[in-house]
């Protein structure tokens, strides 16, 4: 079907349902329960009739018993906006199995689950290159399972590159998507300026946030030793490092602490957090880790 996700996985993804802890606040109709009242089969409440109300919604059974006019209210089912923030910076193209490829696969899976659940999916790649602006437009407000093929194609055409300010990108995304929904952030979260402000601004919008940190094996277990001049793939900054096998443990601790800090930050703000290796089997992340993490069921 597509290079991003295997047909078998798609079959299994179809059976999943995206979970949302809050009621949808979207204005568009969908299949998610919302706080708004409208037309559906789900009873919500009664209220007194006031002139001008639709006579079709008067509960005549109550009028027969109480001789008073009451209006029967139903829950309005709205759609759930699902926004996938996909880090497409240069650092994501790093690794034997590039993190960006892995990120696209996760985005495709999440998007597919959402599309199957009649939710509205938006992929927000950042940074957005000039040649990809049109592509980003195609990936916005995607609805319906039928759009999934096109959605995958567009996703596959995305490329990683450039420098990004993570916080600013997320802040801008939060402002763009005013109706709160589910936000999935796929990134390595390796930004010198930090990730806190961006995640906070998303949270302030009321979004339910899932942070998936993707790191390559080379980042977790470096294989280069000796007197090194490490060059930052995004900024090009050079740093001189003397690294040996005996310092491997210290490095591992550093990585673990970094991930731990991110995880604690997320937990403190009600966000969900997953750590993924870019070379791991994606089924393990989607069907096990994210399922138990409450992303879907």
């Amino acid at each position, binding site marked *: 079907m597509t290079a991003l996700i295997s047909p078998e996985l798609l079959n299994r993804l179809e059976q999943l349902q995206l979970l949302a802890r809050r009621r949808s606040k979207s204005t568009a109709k969908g299949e998610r329960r919302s706080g708004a009242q409208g037309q559906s089969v789900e009873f919500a409440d009664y209220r007194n009739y006031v002139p001008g109300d639709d006579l079709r919604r008067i509960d005549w059974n109550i009028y027969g018993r109480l001789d008073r006019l009451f209006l029967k209210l139903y829950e309005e089912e709205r759609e759930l906006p699902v926004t996938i923030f996909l880090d497409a910076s240069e650092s994501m193209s790093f690794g034997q199995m590039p993190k960006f490829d892995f990120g696209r696969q996760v985005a495709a899976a999440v998007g597919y689950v959402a599309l199957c659940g009649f939710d509205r999916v938006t992929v927000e790649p950042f940074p957005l290159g000039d040649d990809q602006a049109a592509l980003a437009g195609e990936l916005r407000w995607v609805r319906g399972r039928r759009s999934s093929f096109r959605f995958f194609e567009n996703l596959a055409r995305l490329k990683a590159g450039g420098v990004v300010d993570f916080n600013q990108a997320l802040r801008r995304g939060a402002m763009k998507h005013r109706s709160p929904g589910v936000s999935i952030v796929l990134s390595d979260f390796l930004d010198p300026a930090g990730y806190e402000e961006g995640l906070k601004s998303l949270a302030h919008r009321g979004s339910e946030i899932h942070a998936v940190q993707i790191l390559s094996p080379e980042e977790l277990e470096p294989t280069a030793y000796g007197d090194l001049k490490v*060059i930052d*793939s995004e900024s090009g900054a050079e740093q001189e490092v003397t690294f040996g096998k005996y310092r491997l443990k210290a490095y591992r601790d550093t*990585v673990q602490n970094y991930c731990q800090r991110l995880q604690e930050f997320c937990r403190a703000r009600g966000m969900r957090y997953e750590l993924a290796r870019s070379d791991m089997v994606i089924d393990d992340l989607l069907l096990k880790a994210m399922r138990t993490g409450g992303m879907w069921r």
Partner: protein
Amino acid sequence: MNFLTPESLAFAATLPVVVIFYLLKRRRVARLVSSTILWQRFLNETQASSPFQKLRHNWLLIIQLILLVLAVFALTRPYFAGKLEGGRFIVAILDVSASMQATDVSPSRLGQAKAALAKLIDSMYDNDRMVLLLAGAVTEVRQSPTSSKPALRSALGQVRATDSPTRLLDAIKLAQNLTRNRVKAEVHLFSDGASPDLDDFELQDLDLAYHRVGEGGDNLGIVSLEVRPHPEQPGQQAVFATVANASTNPLVSDVSLFFGERLVGNRRVSVSATNTASLVFVASYGTNGVFRLLLKNNDALAVDNTATALSLARRDTQALLVTKGNQFLERALRSVPKLNLAVAPNLADPAPPVDFVVLDGVAPTTWPSGNVLAIHTQSTNWFRPSGPIDGPLIVDWKSSHPLLRYVNFDNVQVAKSLAAKLPAWFAPLVESPSAPLVAAGENDGQRAVWIGFNPLDSTWPLRVSFPIFVANAAAWLNPAARTGILVGEPFHVRLGNTETPVTIQLPDGSTRETKTTASGELVFGETGQQGVYTASFGTNTLRFCVNLLDRDESRIRSRESLQMGEYGTVEASVAVSADKEAWRWFAMLCLVFVLFEWWFYHRRTA
């Protein structure tokens, strides 16, 4: 503190060089990473465009600077001014006898002894002095007292084992003389203790350390070899040999006798523990040649597995009896095998062409120049009898002398004898309370036997000891027949009457130039090698054999203690008790330290 070589401080100029190396930046391998955030902890320094960097705290630099400072400091040879105590005076006696060739320890006993002595040399302080004595059959001062370790090592390196028996007594006595009246004197003996002559030595206050080498092992050795005319077959000669087993195990070996390159006989001999076995080979008289006896077993000591002896010459001994008539004497002389006797009433020629002259009661006008058996002569060249003694009693005789072998004077009575004052070179053999009755000696190559009484005035001719004595005298007075000596013994032979140059070829092929004395006697003392020696003089050649034939040397069990005199015992000290300089260990530690530093550096970067 002062310095012997302060100019070595110039090496301190290398210190800044090391610092410069640390100022120079190392070439680094460029590596692209996704982000440097995870590397923040390992960042060494910020990017600098210059080839130099700021000098930072670095343990490697500090270690290297310390090492360099110490090395420069050592090169300046610092010393503390102070009063130096008098050093030790060490006498090292190295046994170079045949038994030290034994290979029961690796590489050999001598090798082990040399290694132990080398350690002792290494441990000497600068103010210690050492004398190196080599103890073989004779004691040799290989190195006079010196503090120079290179000289001692060089002298030690040139030491080779000889084939001679051990005579430690001379060496220890020399050491005793050398250390007399010295405060810090030590004598170190490196030996296997196979010396039979220490019983007569009193240790007194000699500080002797016995460094025992060797352990002991199976050894079968030839301890005697003699060629004699066959007692029963006149045309044959018999080769008598004795093989001794010094070990505590019974040993079996093949024994082969060669005449030149020709095999005469081959026997299998089985010798029980600590016992001997005798062998007799029969060979016909042939041309002049050498018998070589070979033990074909692979034991710890090889030098005693071979022995040589010259074949007997067919020539008979020529003797002249000058007598007025003595049947007993004449018959006794004629019964000596292979002796041609001429009898004359007086000595016409002072130098008759015979091997020896017997003067029986005759005083010649000119004393013969050759060997003489003088019986009851009134006056001789060397002494004049002081007067007659009546009925002298024989109280003592030297049965160990070759002349008195198997000769017994128990039932010999003498009616009267001449009393004489003997010169120093005469050894009395048979003594009465007032004067010697029989004496023998050798002066300037001339052998003489003197009997003070007329045998006819005694019961001696009626005793069996008389013909034996005459036969012994005939053999002793014909020393030219003596062609075999022991290792280390001087070889002497009369080659003529004038001074003659002689070239002697040693068994190893080397030659020595010497000459006889004015009276034509050759004395050659360099007989430290076992084998056949050839002396060439004019157109003639003379061969003689040198053999070890020493039971003590074949008994290779190393002694754990040395019995010195009646009461003294020197126990073997296993280790050389000596102060060892420790600077080498520190140098080793220094090396280890450098290696550690190298490893530490690579561990950081590998």
